[in-house]
């Protein structure tokens, strides 16, 4: 069975949050760039 380490309760994944923040910014920038290409080319109906 899992024994809880004392360190476990104090562990805060701050680095994880920073890595994911970088990921999200990259995601939004790339996605928005492609989306703007779409918008710039106009309607299809």
């Amino acid at each position, binding site marked *: *069975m*899992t024994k*809880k380490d004392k*360190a*476990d309760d104090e*562990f805060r*994944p*701050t*680095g*994880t949050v*920073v*890595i*994911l923040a970088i*990921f999200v910014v*990259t*995601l939004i920038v*790339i*996605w928005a760039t*492609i*989306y703007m*290409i*779409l918008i710039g*080319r106009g309607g*299809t109906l």
Partner: protein
Amino acid sequence: MTQYQLSTGEKKFIGWHLLAAILAFAVGSFFGPLQAFEHAGWDLYPYLKPLIKSYYQGLTIHGVLNALVWTTFFIMGFLTFNVIFGLKRPLKNMTLNKVGFWMMVVGVLTAAVPILANEATVLFTFYPPLKANPFFYIGLTLVVVGSWVEGWGFFMTYAAWRKEHPNERTPFIAFGSLVTTLLWQICTLGVAVEILTMLLPWSLGLIEGVDPQLARTYFWFTGHPLVYFWLLPAYISWYAMLPKQAGGGKMFSDSLARLAFWLFLVLSTPLGFHHQYVDPGVPPVWKFIHAMLTFSVFFPSLMTAFTVIASLEYAGRKQGGTGTLRWIGKLNWSNPSVAAQLLAGILFFFGGIGGLANASYNVNLVLHNTAFVPGHFHLTVATAVTLSFMGISYWLVPYLTGKKLWQPKWATIQAWVWFIGMIIFSNSMHVLGLLGAPRRVPLGLAPYIPAEWNSRLFQVGVGGAILFVSGVLYLVVMYKTATNKQTVESEVEVPIAEAMQDPALSPVWLDRWSPWVYGALALIVIVYGPQLFDMIKNIALTSPGFRVW
């Protein structure tokens, strides 16, 4: 603490899967770079003429062997290991699993004959009315059915284990493997129906024609969850093995990991229309509904990203890592298995971004069938999955054979070379796609190439060359390991990251199958049923076959 031991027979059986997978990788990866070289203007196909007739025959071999055969065999082997080791019991019916495995082998060989004879140059999507030799379809069917049979063996083993352990939580690696197997069995119904009701009778001359729109719909019923069939085994390793290897880490959240797997089971099939956004015969309302479900299946991947990275951060800090990000350097990068999987994970971020763009409904108008798409899936199946599988094999092959990994340093270099080659290859493919370059075209010869594409096409060739070096290096390491005279001193330890919170404390509904399975089937019926019914009712078998290669 001694670990559960697999028998020699079980190790051999899993080893056969890996051998078949690696042989397929070897042949398929020889043809991958040939496409990349062609793009850069170095067309080597004329030199292969007596054996290989065309660019497209090479591309078919590359796609079938690398995307379908290498992955499926590796996965079935790895899942067999996970089921046995996770449940700590032998397979319920080893003979059944052996039958499944040999069906897959016979299937690959059966399909290989027409492919090598240039009678099935239809690429790995085999869209009708391109018509291949019947043995191509028979071979593919055998591979799929063989994988089902092996999966039934897993389910029987699980049922036996459950009887022996009525109140225990399913150990995570077995749990993830069983979910992956079930997902595969549900989603392959699409391609099974496509082949058995249309393509095979048609190629045998029993029916005159096929309905290409319906065939595409069946194909993509399987085609997208196929991606998760590839990916989930890598996720199992990232969740439950990599943190341990990287520095004695623990699984940050066992219950969220299980929830993520259930969400993949429920959500990864009912969204196949996102591969058909620009098909003429599917109403936009269904395309839109599938788009929304596609956004929702991104969610369990976001959960996975958090849990896996947090588990790694825990490992890094346990190794004395400090600062916000400096713990990354404390991870066990010198272990080739760790390096390969970490690098695979880094590139998977970009695979996810490209995938989300592809799947964003009308945004697909910018990207559909451009070079962006192979650029994207070389980050997912050819890196997140393939490089992770390479990393897994760096501990699993020594475990199975008792031979020491040959030159771990070279194995680590192999992973880095793949990483670098793939960045160059994939980045240039994405950019070319945004500029309008189509996929599946020998771009070195296409008459409409503007000069501004040339530098990118050159980079595609450079990336392909680097990847080729890495692929050869992988094969050398594997061969030298399998034939290594140095044996491991003691049994290789299977890396298993324990959960931070005892899995027994996680909610019991995370270990109940029926609500999730019925939920998955219900959702499929709701979002596929009406449109499929309509298409089948109005089926038009009006397309005769063509052999235009």
